[in-house]
């Protein structure tokens, strides 16, 4: 199993989004997401979609990356759609025994799935154009005022870095264990579904064991590297807002406000 491109991992194309300060991206995305959650009208949805497509184009990231990201969410999307279609009350347009499909249900289902897709695309834009460490720095800087309230911001930041760092390693370990058990004659895919739940035990237990051992070793390594409690560290790479950050920030504010106005106008 080759996992060369993990869904959502950094993809270098040196677009303008790659060069933005991570804080700009984080704040903009939060704004845009909040805005999207307020949208109601078809026109505002269409405008929002055009906006997102423009962003995707400008990022110069090949479309199949986004497509495969959405593909893995297909099950959840379908489930959400069906849920709303079947359980929303209103004008029934079709029924079969106790299942009733309403106009409102279809309406809701489409809207919500559409919205989820836009949000997923937006979120992947963040992870695809921002290196994990840069993202962690951005978050750390944004949350730093909280450290005055004794919230351990620096340590959360290190936790995120370590989590990102070890995802490929743990996946490799998982592959290794799967292969080893397969070599012993243990083939998960050949087991019927009900048994499959327990079938993961020979996979998960060794995996958990190595993860815990690894975590223990890591704490020694971090201590030995003089991390202490993480306070007072100097930073090598500095985050500075540039012209383009202010410009993009402005554009985002304009667009989100326009969308909200469109929405209120009931267009």
């Amino acid at each position, binding site marked *: 199993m*080759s996992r*060369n491109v993990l869904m959502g991992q950094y993809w270098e194309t040196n677009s303008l989004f790659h060069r933005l300060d991570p804080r700009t991206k984080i704040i903009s995305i939060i704004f845009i997401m909040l805005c999207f959650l307020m949208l109601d009208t078809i026109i505002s949805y269409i405008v929002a979609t055009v906006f997102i497509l423009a962003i995707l184009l400008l990022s110069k990231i090949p479309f199949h990356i986004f497509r495969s990201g959405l593909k893995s969410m297909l099950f959840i999307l379908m489930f959400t759609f069906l849920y709303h279609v079947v359980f929303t009350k209103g004008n029934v347009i079709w029924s079969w025994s106790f299942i009733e499909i309403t106009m409102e249900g279809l309406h809701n289902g489409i809207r919500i799935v559409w919205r989820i897709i836009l949000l997923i695309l937006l979120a992947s834009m963040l992870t695809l154009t921002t290196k994990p460490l840069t993202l962690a720095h951005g978050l750390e800087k944004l949350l730093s005022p909280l450290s005055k309230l004794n919230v351990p911001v620096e340590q959360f930041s290190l936790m995120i870095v370590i989590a990102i760092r070890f995802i490929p390693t743990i996946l490799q*370990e998982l592959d*290794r*264990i799967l*292969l*080893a*058990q*397969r*070599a*012993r*004659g*243990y*083939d998960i895919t050949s087991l019927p579904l009900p048994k499959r739940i327990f079938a993961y*035990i*020979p996979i998960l*237990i*060794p995996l958990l*064991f*190595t993860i815990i051992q690894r975590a223990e070793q890591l704490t020694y390594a971090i201590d030995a590297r003089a991390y202490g409690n993480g306070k007072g560290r100097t930073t090598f790479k500095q985050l500075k807002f540039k012209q383009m950050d202010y410009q993009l920030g402005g554009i985002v504010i304009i667009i989100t406000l326009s969308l909200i106005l469109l929405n209120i106008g009931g267009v």
Partner: protein
Amino acid sequence: MVYQLNNVSVNYTDRVALHNVSCTIEEGKWISIIGRTGAGKSTFVKVLKGLIPSIDGDYSIDQQLVQRDSKSQLKVIPDIGYVFQYPEHQCFETSVYKELAFASKMMGHSSQQITHAIELILPQVGLSEEILPLAPFQLSGGYKRRLAIASELMMNPRLLILDEPTAGLDPVSRLSLMRLLKEWQQQDNRTILNVSHQMNDVAEYSDEVIAFHEGHLMEHCDTSTLFLEQGQWLAKLGMSLPEPVQLLKLVEELSGQNIEVASCRERDIFEKVWPILHTRGC
């Protein structure tokens, strides 16, 4: 059992792991697989076990092509034992007994058969019955290693593949493990394929050596022939000679003589080398 590869290649998305490899493995031998990291050794032995589903070329056992499924993928071959590097990482059961019984249970063996097999296996790997109720995680490194190897031996394979079985072990555990494996192999004319970086062990225990370089099978011959006669090109491929052989070459150089030895094993080389060192007054 004769295992034969004919023009086998393994292509991954980013590189070619094996190029047109052809080779025949006959039973009753200890064969070491050597080569630098990434040369294709692990891929080679994985192909033999059927762990690599798509390969180009033919793989036959006893003149019969190995079974493929409907999509032409190779299936895992159950009668070949395979011990991964750091095999203790795959242990998961709550007791040593259950860990040993794992594969046998899946094959449908009865508890009596399993218990009997366990009783036979434990002494072969130098473990005592006292550890049966313990959890694998409670055992020390060397014992966990033997446990993992023992669970492969439970299936009584005719061919046992080991990927660096002594990796990470201290010298004494290494020595006793190699000796146990040699004894196991010599009983009943079994075959061992041992992927290894430890040249001294290769010289000491193997009958034949297969050398890989960048996905190509470079040589498959007698251990002594390889180390005593073909030493130079090994060095060019970034592999070192076993220490006894290096000593032999050094003494040959210093004394200007050609020294005949029975094999490349330590004892045989020491026997011939010491009189020379003695006469030269060291």
